[in-house]
C-alpha cells in the first residue's frame, strides 16, 4: 500500500497538499480548485501522488471507482471538449463533482502524515449527567473502541444517543484516532456540529454537507452526510453511523460501500439507530455485531404509546372540503388549548388540501406545511420551535431528528405504504422528549389497519415493557 519515504535526499513536498489528500480520493478537478496544475504535476513527477482512473469500462459493466456505481442507467456519455473523445461519466455521484473517463482520481503516495497530536486537556468538557442506561452504553462503547468491536446501538427515540457517544469519542481522540460521524441527514450534521464543538472544544472538528463552510482538512473529528464519504478512502479509525436505517443510506448500496471504503480495514464501526432493520439484526444474531439495547429515554419516562382512530375514506372527505370527523374531534381541543401540533401527511397533494381546509376553518391558528423541496423548510421548523407556528403539517421528512417541546403528534392516513413500521416508530418518538413535559399524545388516523401500524405499536409497547423490567423507568425506583 502506501510507502513511507524518509525525508533525507527527497524532493520537498507541500504539507498542505498532503493534508488535503490524506485518506481521500479526490477528483483532479477538486484538487485544482485548491492547488495549481503545476504544483500537482511536480508532486506527480516526484512520485508523491498517483492518478487512478475514475471510470473503468469492462466488457459488460461500467464502474465508477469513486462511488462504486455499476448501474448502467446511471452512466451517460458525450463528446468531450477536453479530450476530444467520447467520455463516459457517472451520474450517481455527479453532485459531488463529475467523475468521467478523462478525469482521474488523485491519491497521495508520499510520506504519510504524522499521527494526530492528542488534543489539549480537558478533551471532553461536558457537565451533564448520564442516565443509568446511558452510562451502561457509554462504558460498552469505550470498550468497543479499545477492542475494535463493531457495535450496534439500538436506542429508543429520545434516549440521548449523542451523549452516550461522548466518552467513546474522547477515548478515540486521546488515542490519536481519526473519527467520522456520518449520517444520511444533513439536518443532523448541522445540529451535531455545534454540540460536539462545545463538548470537544480543543479538538479540530469539521462538518461536511453540500454547501458547508465548516471544512477543515486538519480535523481529527469529521461530521458528514454519508454522501460526502465518496471522497474518502481508508481514512477513519472509528466510523460511527447515526440513523443507519434512514433514507437514502438504507436504499442506496453505493452509500454503504462508501462508508466501508472510507474506514481503515481495522477500524471500529458503531451503528446507531432507534429502528434497526432486519439485516442489522441478523448480523447481531450471527455475532458479527455487538448489540447494545437501550429501552428507556434519558428522562426515565415511558414512550408515549400511540392510539389508532378510523377516518374512513379520507380522500373523499377532503375532496368535499371537510375534515374526517374523528380527526376534527382530536384537533379542536388541542388548537383551543394552544398545544403545538405536528401532523404527518402521506403526500404533498393531500397536505395542501388539508392546509387550505384548516385555513378556511380558522383564520387565527398559525399553521404551515413543509416538505423536502420546500426552500423555507429550515425557517419554518425554527418558527415551530419558537412557537410562532402552532400547527405544522409535514411529509415524512421530519420523522427524525426534530424536537418540539410539548408537541402532540398525529399521522394522517397511516395506512399508506410510506408509513413503514420504522417511520411510525420514529414519528411516535417525536412526542414527550422534553423532561419537563414527558407525555404527549400520538394518534394514527387510518383507513384500515396495516401490518406496519400494528408492528409499530407492538414495538413501542415492547420497549416500554423491557424498560420497566430493567428497572430503568422513573416510577419503578420510587
Amino acid at each position, binding site marked *: 500500500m502506501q510507502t513511507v519515504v524518509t525525508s533525507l535526499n527527497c524532493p520537498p513536498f507541500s504539507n498542505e497538499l498532503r493534508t488535503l489528500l490524506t485518506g481521500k480520493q479526490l477528483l483532479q478537478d477538486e484538487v485544482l480548485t485548491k492547488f495549481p496544475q503545476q504544483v500537482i504535476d511536480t508532486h506527480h513527477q516526484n512520485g508523491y501522488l498517483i492518478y487512478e482512473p475514475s471510470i473503468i469500462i469492462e466488457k459488460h459493466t461500467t464502474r465508477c471507482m469513486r462511488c462504486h456505481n455499476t448501474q448502467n*442507467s*446511471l452512466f*451517460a*456519455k*458525450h*463528446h*468531450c*471538449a*477536453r479530450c476530444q473523445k467520447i*467520455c463516459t*461519466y457517472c*451520474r450517481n455521484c*455527479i*453532485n459531488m463533482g*463529475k467523475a*468521467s473517463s478523462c478525469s482521474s482520481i488523485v491519491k497521495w503516495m508520499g510520506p504519510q502524515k504524522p499521527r494526530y497530536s492528542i488534543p489539549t486537556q480537558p478533551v471532553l468538557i461536558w457537565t451533564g449527567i448520564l442516565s443509568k442506561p446511558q452510562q451502561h452504553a457509554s462504558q460498552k462503547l469505550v470498550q468497543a473502541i479499545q477492542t475494535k468491536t463493531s457495535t450496534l446501538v439500538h436506542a429508543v427515540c429520545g434516549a440521548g444517543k449523542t451523549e452516550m457517544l461522548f466518552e467513546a469519542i474522547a477515548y478515540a481522540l486521546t488515542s490519536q484516532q481519526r473519527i467520522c460521524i456520518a449520517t444520511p441527514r444533513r439536518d443532523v450534521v448541522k445540529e451535531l456540529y455545534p454540540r460536539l464543538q462545545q463538548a470537544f472544544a480543543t479538538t479540530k472538528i469539521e462538518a461536511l454537507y453540500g454547501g458547508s463552510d465548516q471544512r477543515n482538512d486538519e480535523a481529527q473529528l469529521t461530521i458528514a452526510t454519508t454522501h460526502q464519504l465518496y471522497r474518502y478512502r481508508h481514512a477513519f479509525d472509528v466510523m460511527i453511523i447515526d440513523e443507519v436505517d434512514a433514507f437514502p443510506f438504507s436504499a442506496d448500496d453505493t452509500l454503504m460501500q462508501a462508508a466501508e471504503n472510507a474506514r481503515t480495514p481495522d477500524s471500529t464501526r458503531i451503528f446507531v439507530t432507534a429502528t434497526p432493520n432486519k439485516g442489522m439484526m441478523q448480523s447481531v444474531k450471527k455475532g458479527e455485531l455487538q448489540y447494545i439495547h437501550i429501552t428507556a429515554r434519558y428522562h426515565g419516562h415511558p414512550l408515549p404509546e400511540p392510539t389508532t382512530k378510523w377516518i374512513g375514506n379520507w380522500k373523499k372527505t377532503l375532496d368535499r372540503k371537510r375534515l374526517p370527523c374523528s380527526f376534527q374531534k382530536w384537533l379542536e381541543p388541542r388548537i383551543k388549548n394552544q398545544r403545538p401540533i405536528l401532523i404527518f401527511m402521506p403526500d404533498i397533494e393531500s397536505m395542501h388540501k388539508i392546509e387550505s381546509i384548516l385555513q378556511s376553518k380558522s383564520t387565527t391558528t398559525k399553521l404551515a406545511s413543509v416538505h423536502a*423541496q420546500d*426552500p423555507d423548510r429550515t425557517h419554518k421548523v425554527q418558527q415551530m420551535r419558537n412557537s410562532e407556528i402552532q400547527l405544522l403539517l409535514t411529509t415524512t421528512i421530519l420523522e427524525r431528528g426534530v424536537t418540539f417541546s410539548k408537541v402532540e403528534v398525529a399521522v394522517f392516513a397511516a395506512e399508506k405504504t410510506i408509513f413503514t413500521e420504522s417511520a411510525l416508530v420514529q414519528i411516535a418518538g417525536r412526542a414527550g422528549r422534553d423532561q419537563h413535559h414527558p407525555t404527549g399524545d400520538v394518534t394514527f388516523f387510518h383507513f384500515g389497519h396495516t401490518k406496519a401500524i400494528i408492528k409499530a405499536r407492538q414495538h413501542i409497547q415492547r420497549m416500554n415493557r423491557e424498560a420497566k423490567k430493567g428497572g430503568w423507568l422513573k416510577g419503578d425506583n420510587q
Partner: protein
Amino acid sequence: MSHCIICHDPMFPQLSWRDLFTPSIPEPICEKCASTLRPIDHNRICTTCSRPLAEKSYACHDCITWSKHPTYSTTLDQNRALYSYNDSLKALIKRFKYDRDYAIASCFSKKMNEVIKIMPSYDILTPIPLNEQRLRDRSFNQSEALLIEANLPYELLLTRTDDTTTRQAKKSKRDRHTTENPFETAHHLATKSILLIDDLYTTGTTIRHAAYTLKQAGAAKVSSVTVGR
C-alpha cells in the same frame, strides 16, 4: 425498464393497443418530475421575448426598452421558450451546466422539436457558443448539447471571445446591458434566416449580441429558441 433522467426512478410506461403498431417514443422523465416544470402557453406571452404574461402582447416592458436601443433595436425577430423559469428549472439547468450532467439535455428534446416546428421557416440552426476556456472547463457546450440530443442538424456559425472571469449568471442587469458584444463570425450569410439556440433568455442581451453579429454578416432574419424564459 427505463429510468427517469432527472430523479432516476424506474418508469413503467402505460401500454396501449396502438403501441403494437406504432411503438411510441418513451418519455425521458417521469410524470412527477414533468409536473414541476411549467410549459409556456404561447397564446399568453410577449410575442417578442416569450415572457409569460396574462394575455398576448406585442412587447413587454423590457422589449419596449430594447426597441429604443440605438444598436440592438431590431436585431432579434422573436424568441420562443419551452418553459418558464421557476425553481425546478433553475435546479435542472444548474445540474446541466454547472454540475455538467450532459444527459439532462435529452429532457428537453421532445419539446424543443415541437417549439422549433411552430417557428417561422429558417435556413440554419446554430447554438450560442462558449469561449474556448469555458468550453474546456465545462467539457461540452450546453446549447449544442440541446441540438445534438434533439437530433437537429446545425452549423457552428459563431465564435466567442469574452473574458472568462465572470459568468453571465453572476452579472447584474446593468453589467449585462453594458458589456461589449463577444461574438464573431467568419461566415457570409447573405439573405439567410437563422434560428439561434440557447439554454436561457434572461435579459436578452446574449441573444441580441449574437443576432447583431449574424446580421452584420448578412443574415436577413434572426430568431431564437431557449429552454427557459
